[in-house]
């Protein structure tokens, strides 16, 4: 059964190995250049000046092709699990049904459960290995940029820390979980729908849906987020937004500044001493054109507001990676079990 699985998968395996090899060479060459720039600028040995050096490093990258490659790497890490689900998963068994060859396979002296388990297991391992190698290569290539971005103050890239939803899914071990899940999802769709192309479409739609739900709904709560409060300081605040609607009372939303390098900020609220969300109303000092900005700041500071930040600190990158990978692997194993059960039960 191992031989047959390999024989049927050989073409795809060789193709993807070749693509990975080419990619490894390209990333190896350019990644080397990236590392030497990182060292040249002094980021490898910096003590107190890291934040400004990081900003400088990131600024320099904006002009070269490194920035393009950084985003291409992200796109590739997003695309590969989906492609694995669509092109390895969905056809794996659906194509057997379409061509009727399952009737040949199921009448050899091998039980159907074994047939399904070996196919799922081997190709699934290949899917995980492919995603793993790719993630390793791209994570290595992007590590100078990721380090610089994690200093956070590099204002050009504050949204691209390793924990930010965009980058998180393209680094570390999470892509292994995505690949395993996408593959199992594709196989399941193929087993249930029995037709390759519709199974591919369903796989893409469901996988995309899960990949959107995960960072927005699930990931923030995989580990209980940290809550921190600090006195609100109007002098360093990021944003004052005053809105007035018709004749009603004007509202005032304040956004405080924070310094949490590399953290994933889930919410940043300004609350009153009684714990209520502050929404104004603004004093004249803040609405009148004649008053000085300092007067408004002084009034805000006199309210003794507090800033409440909910966030995942940068140190949670690996715990969150493990938790998320675990979730996806559990889903993948459950889908695999469902497939095997369906195939054992399914008739003709």
């Amino acid at each position, binding site marked *: 059964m191992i031989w047959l699985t390999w024989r049927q998968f050989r073409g795809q395996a060789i193709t993807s190995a070749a693509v990975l090899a080419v990619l490894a060479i390209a990333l190896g060459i350019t990644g080397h250049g990236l590392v030497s720039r990182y060292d040249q600028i002094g980021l490898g040995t910096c003590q107190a000046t890291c934040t400004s050096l990081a900003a400088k490093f990131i600024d320099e990258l904006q002009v070269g092709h490194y920035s393009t490659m950084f985003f291409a790497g992200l796109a590739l890490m997003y695309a590969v699990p989906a492609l694995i689900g669509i092109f390895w998963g969905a056809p794996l068994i659906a194509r057997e049904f379409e061509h009727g060859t399952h009737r040949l396979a199921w*009448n050899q002296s*091998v039980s159907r459960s074994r047939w399904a388990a070996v196919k799922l297991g081997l190709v699934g391992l290949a899917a995980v290995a492919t995603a793993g190698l790719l993630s390793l290569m791209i994570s290595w290539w992007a590590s100078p940029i990721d380090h610089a971005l994690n200093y956070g103050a590099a204002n050009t890239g504050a949204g691209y820390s390793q924990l930010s939803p965009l980058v998180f899914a393209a680094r570390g071990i999470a892509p292994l979980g995505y690949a395993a899940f996408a593959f199992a999802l594709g196989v399941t769709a193929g087993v249930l729908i029995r037709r390759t192309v519709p199974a591919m479409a369903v796989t893409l739609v469901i996988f995309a849906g899960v990949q959107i739900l995960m960072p927005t709904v699930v990931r923030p709560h995989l580990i209980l987020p940290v809550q921190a409060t600090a006195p609100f300081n109007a002098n360093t605040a990021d944003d004052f937004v005053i809105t007035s609607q018709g004749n009603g009372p004007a509202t005032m939303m304040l956004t405080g500044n924070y310094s949490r390098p590399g953290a994933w900020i889930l919410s940043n609220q300004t609350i009153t001493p009684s714990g209520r969300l502050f929404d104004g109303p603004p004093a004249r000092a803040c609405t009148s054109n004649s008053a000085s900005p300092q007067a408004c700041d002084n009034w805000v500071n006199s309210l003794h507001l507090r800033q409440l930040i909910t966030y995942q600190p940068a140190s949670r990158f690996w715990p969150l990676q493990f938790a998320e990978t675990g979730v996806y692997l559990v889903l993948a194993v459950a889908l695999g079990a469902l497939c095997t059960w369906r195939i054992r039960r399914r008739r003709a």
Partner: protein
Amino acid sequence: MTAAIEASGLGKKYGRRWALSDCTLSIPVGRVVGLVGPNGAGKTTLLNLATGMLAPTTGSIRVLGGEPASGPDQLARVGYVAQDAPVYAGLSIADHLRLGAHLNPGWDADLAAQRISRLGLTPSQKAGTLSGGQRAQLALTLAIAKRPELLILDEPIASLDPLARREFLQVLMETTAESEVSVIMSSHLVADLERIADYLVVLMGSRVQLAGEVDQLLASHQLLTGVRRDPGSLPASLHIVTASHTERQSTILVRSDEPVLDPSWSVSQIDLEDLVLAYMGLARTEPAGPVAPTAKILEEKR
């Protein structure tokens, strides 16, 4: 001695339609069984039940004493060439033989290689480029080389040209002559089976109409021709299968274990094809008139 196929009250329902109903059969081992019936009669359903590709809705079926597809051992005992002889289009003939060798503990590599070379096929050829006849031969080779005790073939020659048909049947006959294998082969044409089958099962309208050894079936059926008369006047020991009347003459097919001695009838033997057609016609149209002895068969059909 265990039966090749032992079915009791076997039925399979798809949605609201019965593809096979109330099928009770006991086919001994060592036979070459012809399973005849028009398209849609339930032949494929019966064979899929026998190979465990389908699970019965009602009743039970045992193949060589075991539950179909219950495990690797049972799978090894039954060789199956499914309808349209599926093979992997992207794999070569040699790949298929390796597949067989890897997946079947009883694989006879010499036999497989011999058959392929005798068929004049190139092992490196992709199965997708084979003609229908060659594909059927490849599928048959895979099924034979696993050395099964029972070979099940679902309409293996339906789509083949006459020459390929003859070659296929030739290979099949050699196989049954060389080994002890039992064969069940379905076809909608009696002529395909006449040459090789020694046991016949006629399926029509999802029901078994007739089953038995070909010799016995032929010996126990007689065609009576004589002056027109009411079939009810025949002795009760004769079961009337079909009766047709012209203005002056009656032609009656009877089933009886005793010879018909009435000299007013001219008695002749019926050939296999006519016998099958008679039973098929019986299921299709409900004959009118006083045909009391056939009522039992008709009831089975309803």
